Every structure is written in structure tokens, then in C-alpha cells.
């Protein structure tokens, strides 16, 4: 049944997505053609639009997913969704998986678009592979600056990319589901926005607390060539107070010196984030089965 629900999600989202990809393809092609031939004004304009479209593609798909989640669960479509012979867990998991597949799909297209942009830049300068080669050089060297191998650096990027989806899905599904629950139901579509605002404020407060007052930090200190990093069980507020707040930008070297040879970045914030993800998963999965449709 999970597979059938995912298939249903794709059927429903297809109608919204069918204009996103062609528009993106059109913008990217225009950027490639006009910039490659160095057509004045139009070339630059389409190139900038192509970059913006590449950056916006994944967020646009995520917003469409959010709209689909709301519509499929809490509008007229909910009368179908919530009367299908499936469990609330299956409904929730289907949304999570179909959303993830769309995230992967849109990310792959955006990466492809990014390389087209690099290729376009190279062609416009008369050296087709120039920008792409530069990009790979940077990809090869940056992980070493934080003490990682290239492979570990790539894994780190994939990890952050996965976390972005987890964070997005848990936040948005929680906001919509709690916002359409009995407590906020009277606000209609404003309910999810209200929950999101409350969640944001709570996150900021907990984030501040987690950043400074939980004894878990990433200690960054200068190495022989690159930065050294290790996890320590110290409260970052002490290091922060040592560095002090000047109201001005302090050079990194001075900051390290003031902090006693290191800078502690609070990791406690991730504990709260992880706790929220776990809470949101169980709460939302349960609440999806307790709808109050209008």
C-alpha cells in the first residue's frame, strides 16, 4: 500500500510540477545560448536568470511539496486521502518518501543545471571546460582546510544535503499537521503559519541555549597548515566570554588568540534539533490519523 500511496502522491504532484521543469529548461537553454554567443545585455540577463533559476529549483519543488502535503491531507482531497484503506503511518511515510524522491530528482536537475552554467561560463570565455575544471579543483582542496579528505568532504556535503531535507520535512509536516489540528483549526490556513512562527521562536530560544550552555563543542584551532577540529565536552559560553563581544568584526587570528588558542562552536543546538526531529516524527505520524476536516 505504501508504494500505491507514493504513486498517488506523484500523480497529484505531477500536475503542479509539469510547468516547473519546462520553465527551468527554457531558462537554462536561453542562458546557455545567449551567454555562449556573448550576446550583449540579453546574454548577461539570461545568464543571471539561469543562475537564479538553478538556485531556486529545489526550494520551489519543496514549496510545491508543502502545498501538496496541505492539500492532500487538509482540503477536499483529504476526504479521499483519509478514507483510503491505509494506516496513518503509511500516509505519513508515503509523503516523506515521495517528498524525498522529488528532492533527489530536483537536486539532480539543479546539479545538472549548475554544470551547464559552468560550461556556459567557460564557453563564453573561449575555454569550454575552464570553469568546470576550476570547480573540481576547489572540490578537491577545500576539505583539507578543515582537516578532511576529499572523500570525507563529499560525504559531508551529502550529509548536509540529507539533513536539509529531514529538517524541512519535519518542520513543515509538524507545522501543517499541528496547525490544522483542533487547537489551531479555527485559524484555517493561518494555523500552520502560526505554528511555524511559534516553532521558530522556540527554536531560536533553544538554539541560543544549545549554542552556549550545553557542554558539547567543536573546538577549532590553527594547525600547521590547516585548521584542526575536535569535539570537546566544554560549555562554549566560557570561550565566548574569553573572546568577548566588541561590536566589531575581529580577525580570525585575534579571535583564536583571545579564546586561548581555540574557538569553541556549540554543538548543543544539534541535540535540540535531533530531539525535535524525533518528536516531530512520532507526533506528526500520530496526528495525521486524527484529522478534523472542515
Amino acid at each position: 500500500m505504501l508504494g500505491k500511496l507514493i504513486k498517488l502522491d506523484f500523480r497529484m504532484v505531477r500536475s503542479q510540477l509539469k510547468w516547473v521543469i519546462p520553465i527551468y529548461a527554457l531558462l537554462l537553454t536561453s542562458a546557455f545560448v545567449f551567454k555562449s554567443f556573448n550576446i550583449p545585455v540579453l546574454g548577461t540577463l539570461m545568464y543571471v536568470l539561469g543562475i537564479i533559476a538553478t538556485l531556486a529549483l529545489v526550494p520551489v519543488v519543496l514549496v510545491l511539496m508543502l502545498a501538496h502535503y496541505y492539500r492532500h491531507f487538509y482540503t477536499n482531497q483529504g476526504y479521499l486521502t483519509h478514507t483510503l484503506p491505509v494506516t496513518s503511518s503509511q500516509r505519513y511515510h508515503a509523503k516523506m518518501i515521495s517528498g524525498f524522491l522529488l528532492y533527489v530528482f530536483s537536486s539532480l536537475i539543479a546539479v545538472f543545471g549548475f554544470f551547464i552554467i559552468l560550461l556556459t561560463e567557460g564557453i563564453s570565455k573561449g575555454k569550454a571546460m575552464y570553469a568546470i575544471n576550476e570547480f573540481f579543483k576547489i572540490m578537491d582542496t577545500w576539505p583539507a582546510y578543515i582537516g578532511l579528505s576529499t572523500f570525507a568532504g563529499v560525504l559531508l556535503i551529502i550529509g548536509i544535503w540529507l539533513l536539509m531535507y529531514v529538517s524541512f520535512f519535519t518542520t513543515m509536516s509538524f507545522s501543517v499537521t499541528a496547525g490544522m489540528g483542533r487547537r489551531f483549526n479555527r485559524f484555517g490556513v493561518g494555523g500552520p503559519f502560526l505554528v511555524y512562527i511559534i516553532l521558530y521562536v522556540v527554536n531560536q530560544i533553544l538554539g541560543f541555549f544549545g549554542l552556549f550552555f550545553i557542554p558539547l563543542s567543536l573546538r577549532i584551532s590553527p594547525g600547521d597548515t590547516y585548521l584542526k577540529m575536535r569535539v570537546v565536552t566544554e560549555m562554549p559560553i566560557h570561550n565566548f566570554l574569553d573572546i568577548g563581544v566588541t561590536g566589531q568584526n575581529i580577525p580570525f587570528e585575534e579571535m583564536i588568540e583571545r579564546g586561548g588558542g581555540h574557538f569553541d562552536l556549540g554543538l548543543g543546538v544539534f541535540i535540540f534539533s535531533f530531539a525535535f526531529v524525533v518528536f516531530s516524527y512520532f507526533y506528526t505520524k500520530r496526528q495525521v490519523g486524527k484529522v478534523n476536516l472542515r
Partner: protein
Amino acid sequence: MNNMVDIIGLTRRYGSRRGIENVSLSIYEGEIVGLLGPNGCGKTTLIKLIMGLLQPDEGSVSVMGLKPTEAHHLVSYLPEQTYLSDWMTMEEAFSVFEDFYRDFDKSKAMRMLEEFALHPEQPLKTMSRGMKEKANLTLVMSRYVPVYILDEPMSGIDPAARQTILDSILRNHNPGSTLILSTHLIGDVEMLFDRVIFMDEGYIRLDRSVEDLRANEGKSVDEYFRELYAPVRGGDYYYVR
């Protein structure tokens, strides 16, 4: 007769407004039940609670001994509003129903579409309200289930189309199954019912077999209903205490 739907002390409020209040009843196998009353009397609230689309404040509902959310494979439900996306065609809707309901009979659905003069490739957005109602009814009545629940299947439909819909419901519901039909258009449908439940401001005003009502009151369901509810404002009804 087996109990198909059991409702005990069911209450649902919308803030300070009453939806339904302390409703208890049982609906049995093979019954055709009319859930009747003016707009806003609690019919849809009761049906949504039976379907698990609303959560009760108090009381409980079970469908063939199961929680409402666990009984969706046993119930074919027609909501008041269209639940299909506008861009969908009936062919696509059939495909969705085939995926999820083993009891969905596509050949029966195609026959019904033909009777209603609808085309399977026609998108819903190009259909009139009456056509959409027929399209939804086609999906719901093409399943073989023990319980059918139809919420206002004829609201906003012209009288000629109402008769077609009624005939279709009578012809196509699974023989021996239970049919619960809510409406405020009693005259059109009363010949259908074995039993009628009159609702009024969230309460059950009357729960009686049609045979008993006709024999003892000497009136049709519609006449009896009109006697209890006097017409005011725009053809709606209001109960005279």
C-alpha cells in the same frame, strides 16, 4: 441482524457551537437509512465521525466492531464535496480506486458512466456540478462493500438528474448491504428508506422505521417531516417546538 454501525453517546462541538450532542444509535445489516434534517442539523458531522474524518469530544463509533479509521475497506463513502482533483479524468480516478480497493469493479463503473452519459477521458474541470456528482457516485457505487454512506448525493442537482442518481443508487448498491443516505430533500428519496432518522440541532429528533411511521401516523415521511419542521427563509426548514 448484525450491527454494522454502533454509535454510543457521541458528542462533537465546534468551539461553543454544537455539532452533535450525545447521539446513540445502531444501524443494522441490510438497512437503508435516511439521515434527514435541515442544513446544519448535524448530519454531515455524524457521517464524518463515522468515517473518522472528525474526532469526537465524547462517545464512540464503531463500524462492524472496528474503529472508523480501521474500517475504510468496509465502507464506500460519498462526501458532500468533490474530493478528486480538477485535472483528473474518470479513467485516472478509476485507476486510483483500482489501486486501493480490491472490491472496485471497473466494468461496473464504465457501465455507470455510460448510463450517466459521461466520458472516461473527460477531465473533472470541464464537468458541471451535476456531472461531478454523478462521477463521484460512479466511483462510490462501483465498490462491493457492506456499508455505503452517501452524504447529500443530490444537493444542487436538478430534479431530473436527481431521479437518475436515485435510480442508480438503488440499482447499484451491493444487495444486502447497509446504505446510509443523508439529505434534506426528503420527498425525492423517501421511497428508498427502510428507516429514517430525523436530526435537529445536533440531536436525534426521531428514529423510526418507515413502515411503522406510515402505518401509525398515516403520513408519508415527507409529510411527517414537514409537520415537524415549518418552512422559513429560502426553502430551508426550521423546527417548531
